[in-house]
């Protein structure tokens, strides 16, 4: 799949089917008992409500004509009671359903986030992050009502409708059919708008997602915008995206808003039809005034639940496009996942073997072709070569961030595709090129490497990587709050913090991917000493361009686009007078 940007709508991979809706049952099921209870409470409330017309009728027919004030007061008290009982039942129901609705979206969000944690780099690399974010937060919020209250109301209103129909037929069959005449008209009307409405709301969710993607990227990239004075162009792009949101929304509500007026009109046509039928057409039926009035009031009441159902239907159509996106994300296959019979990776000694590994990020394109090498426990390996040759790719494969196309990657003789990701990665210390810093204190950021690290351990690690001096100089020392993406820290300082974070995790295999590129030479030199201690007894992979950093490694692998060209110690490779020799001399020349 090609990468998605804010410019394109995401194609919905799975078209809508009823399964989507049935699937939400998984989330609703858990609360089925509570919902049934709420339903019962509602039913009781409705029953209590049934008494009110009877009591009113008694007052009007008996108490008032009899001028019996005493009886009138008693009836009034009963009436109050029945109202209070109804209110209490309804309140209790609402309390339950509020909690259920919120808990359902809590569960969905939890699952969604949990699933996102399992998805590999590919997923995150192929779409703007704003589009992922909008699903986790905004979309999930939107479906709460649909899966809780709407569901209950659907049941209640359906029952309500059935009761009304039964009562109606008990009064008069012929006129009841006149009332039911409205149903096919309504059905035709709904069919007419349904598909249009659904497509329109899908568009709304697409356009919103695009807007979010652009927004998020531009907030993160504000500095780039400003230095390139792109503010005006960006404002134009944003305004265009924003305008599309507006247009799709207007289109969608232009359908949604049709429903109520539609039902309203059909309902009055039916009432008119009853008057005409009852008074003029079925004259020989000889309807009494009472029957006609009763039927016209039933006709009015018949449309009430239909209105509510229409409303639920509307709500459902609007939100199903969000639900689709949520399920789509939940269905996103986890490409790199624990195998079914995955075992725990035993404590790693550090032997790493690449056995005829072929790998490409995208189909039809290989970055590594038939690469084989082996590393003994405790050895330090430097990877050198031109950018883009696949050095980072090799170290990414050791942690199984991607699955290889063919061949095997073995650690201590164990094929890493057969062990659990967590047991593998938790024994590795990987320092990536992008030294991402979380918002929080510096201490928290370092502790990320080992959640139960003591302050002493954190300070010790910082000292090893020469981060301690600058951290101590900060106003709040280790407790200094750093903002998202590191804010106040310089790039070099971020690298040192992220270095400390890796060290504190005390990994069995250490991977440093351009870990020191932004650190000045002198600091790096100081750091080297501590690092050398660190490297002792650990297998380590180091990618660096500064040859000073890697000279002391046990083995140096020269990699270019054709694969591993040379492998050996610094001295061996120099003696070989090959690629490494050339590279080394180039640097020497430059320096002098």
């Amino acid at each position, binding site marked *: 799949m090609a990468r998605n940007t804010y410019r394109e709508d995401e194609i919905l991979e799975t078209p809508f089917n009823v399964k989507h809706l049935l699937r939400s049952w998984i989330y609703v099921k858990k609360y089925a008992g509570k919902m049934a209870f709420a339903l019962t409470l509602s039913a009781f409330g409705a029953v209590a409500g049934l008494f009110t017309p009877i009591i009113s009728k008694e007052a009007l027919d008996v108490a008032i004509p009899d001028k019996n004030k005493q009886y009138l007061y008693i009836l009034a008290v009963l009436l109050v009671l029945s109202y209070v009982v109804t209110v209490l039942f309804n309140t209790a129901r*609402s309390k339950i359903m509020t909690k259920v609705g919120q808990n359902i979206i809590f569960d969905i969000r939890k699952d969604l986030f949990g699933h996102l944690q399992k998805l590999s780099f590919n997923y995150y690399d192929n779409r703007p992050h704003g589009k992922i974010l909008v699903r986790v937060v905004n979309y999930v919020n939107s479906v709460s009502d649909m899966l809780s209250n709407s569901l209950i109301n659907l049941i209640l209103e359906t029952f309500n409708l059935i009761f009304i129909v039964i009562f109606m037929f008990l009064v008069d069959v012929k006129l009841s059919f006149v009332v039911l005449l409205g149903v096919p008209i309504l059905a035709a009307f709904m069919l007419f708008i349904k598909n249009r409405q659904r497509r329109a709301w899908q568009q709304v969710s697409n356009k919103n997602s695009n807007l979010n993607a652009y927004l998020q990227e531009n907030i993160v990239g504000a*500095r780039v915008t400003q230095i390139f004075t792109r503010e005006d162009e960006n404002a134009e792009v944003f305004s265009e995206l924003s305008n599309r949101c507006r247009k799709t929304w207007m289109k969608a509500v232009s359908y949604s808003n049709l429903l109520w007026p539609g039902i309203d009109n059909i309902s009055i046509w039916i009432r008119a039809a009853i008057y005409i039928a009852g008074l003029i057409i079925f004259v020989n039926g000889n309807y009494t005034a009472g029957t006609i009035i009763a039927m016209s009031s039933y006709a009015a009441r018949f449309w009430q639940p239909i209105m509510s159902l229409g409303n639920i239907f509307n709500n459902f159509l609007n939100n199903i496009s969000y639900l689709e996106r949520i399920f789509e994300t939940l269905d996103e296959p986890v490409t790199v996942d624990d195998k079914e019979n995955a075992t725990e990776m035993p404590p790693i000694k550090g032997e790493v073997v690449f056995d005829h590994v072929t790998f490409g990020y995208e189909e039809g394109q290989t970055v590594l072709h038939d690469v084989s090498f082996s590393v003994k426990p405790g050895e330090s390996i430097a990877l050198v070569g031109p950018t883009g040759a696949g050095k980072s790719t090799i170290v990414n494969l050791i942690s199984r961030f991607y699955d290889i196309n063919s061949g095997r990657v073995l650690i201590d003789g164990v094929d890493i595709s057969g062990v659990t990701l967590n047991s593998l990665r938790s024994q590795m210390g990987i320092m990536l090129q992008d030294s991402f810093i979380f918002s929080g204190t510096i201490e928290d950021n370092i502790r990320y490497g080992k959640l139960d690290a003591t302050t002493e351990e954190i300070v010790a690690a910082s000292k090893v990587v020469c981060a301690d001096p600058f951290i101590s100089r900060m106003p709040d020392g280790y407790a200094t709050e750093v903002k998202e993406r590191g804010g106040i820290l310089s790039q070099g300082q971020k690298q040192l913090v992220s270095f400390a974070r890796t060290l504190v995790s005390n990994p069995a295999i250490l991977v440093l991917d351009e870990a020191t590129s932004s650190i000045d030479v002198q600091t790096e030199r100081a750091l080297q000493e501590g690092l050398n201690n660190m490297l002792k007894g650990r297998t380590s992979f180091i990618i660096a*361009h500064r040859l000073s950093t890697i000279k002391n490694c046990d083995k140096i692998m020269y990699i270019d686009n054709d694969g591993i060209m040379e492998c050996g110690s610094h001295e061996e490779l120099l003696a070989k007078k090959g690629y490494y020799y050339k590279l080394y001399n180039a640097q020497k020349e430059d320096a002098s």
Partner: protein
Amino acid sequence: MQMSRRKWIWENLKGRRTLYLIGIIGAISYNILQLTAPFVVSRLIDTFISGENAAENLKNNRQLFYTYILAMVGLTLIRTAIVYGTGMTFESVSQWFLYKMRNFLYNKVQRQDMNFYNTYRTGDLMTRLTGDLDAVRHMLAWVIKTIIESISLFTATMVYFFIMDWRLALTILVLAPFILIVIILFKNNVGQKHRILREKLSGLNTAAQENISGNRVVKAFAREPYEIEKFNEANKEFNEMNKETALTWLKFYPYIETFASLMPVVLLVVGGLFMIDGSLTVGEYAAFSGLVWAIANPMRNLGGVINEFQRFKAASAKVMEIYYSEAKIKDADDALDKPERFAGKVEFKDVSFSYEGSKLPVLNNITFTAEPGETVAIMGETGCGKTSLIHLIPRFYEVTGGQVLVDGVDVRKLKLQQLRKNIGLATQDVLLYSDTIDGNIAYGDEHLPKQEVEKFARYAAASDFIAKMPEGYETIVGERGVGLSGGQKQRISLARALAIRPSILILDDTTSAVDMETEKQIQESLKNLDFPCTKIIIAQRISTTKNADKILVLQNGRITEMGSHEELIAKKGYYYSIVALQMGEEV
């Protein structure tokens, strides 16, 4: 000056105010019309069904019968047409407001200075421009409409009631104050909760946003369980607060509902007493009881509306905070207009600088000059203030003392846009956009022709690897440039900076992740650019610095050494030690 909410909304409705008023009038009219159809129906029933001469009337006066039927159907059609039109008017105005406001806020945000970005997190800003702003839209589209509907229905019915029987109308009104008291109590209670709820929503957004951006680190440390735990905490807090807010409503709801339900009871008792003493007819009573919902429902709705209103208040406060935020760094009123291409002279005069809210000085007494066309290299330890220094040139931050001059003019006296248009900056933290490589290089000049893009890619030694990509310059890179190696990203960022042909090119350690060979190529092309350009380069490598006209050594925010490569070597200071270090280790 921050306006009140009402004024703020009204001010921003300029251009759609008339339409909005039409919408309000529409809402009033269909609520009054709502009372007409029942009136027609009651006339029809009286005349043709239950009245004394019903059967006769039906036989002799078909015309009137059909007129009533037609009136019934016609009035409903007119009313629903107005309902639809009004609904669409409210939607259209509120969408227009949303559109306008969102653009305004986006513009506000993207023109803010760095202090602003250090204060607000991405997730928080996202929430303000999406969820919070939507609550404001909802207010315009729905809340106000509902308030108007409720008030007009209530008023119209009340007028009708007073005309029919003022005593009975008054007794129904007796309950209104009670409902109002409960609503006011509720309002005071729920306001704070909505404010907290907005914070929790922002927290949830931030938690998710950071996790998504940092997904690589999360995986590298196998911290998924920890992240899930952290997120679920934010999720839980949002969940709890949502429940608490809703339950607060449910605490007050039974009272409002009960009082509203008492209205027909009061009507029955008082009306019944009047009927008993003969001062009210059954027909009059029926008219009252048939419409008592039109009094009770608006009262009921008021509670829900107040809840929404409090939500709006909390959300709009967050939106307005951004709306009224002012960037501290902006064009001076008397800024110099300098539309022509700058010569590129950069001068620091006794500059000192510290970050806002921090007493720690970052730069002290920095004085140096870069003449047009010169190359100045800056070297120094991690955290010594190199990046802060160069960020003062495009005026990302304001100096705390001294002056930064470009072409002899204090940067504070230049127009920001004109100043920055002349500066090409390739930052350390390379930020590419999820766009094609072509689009990324042409970021500063969208209309850059293809050959030019390729030329600048060549200058940045990027053309080779780009050519090897499956779709060449049309390859889409992921957000923040994922899919590219560090060195590749840096080279595209360099090409992007070059592509605007800046008079001042600032490179912040832009080649740190590039291999030696490539770097040499880059140095070569930087020497032979086809446009005049002052270069200020932060670098660690001697190979980069040695050809500079001037080298500055920065230590703890002060310039400790300055001169050419040879001069500084002769000085045998810090620079010399670095040279020795690099040569000693590499030779």
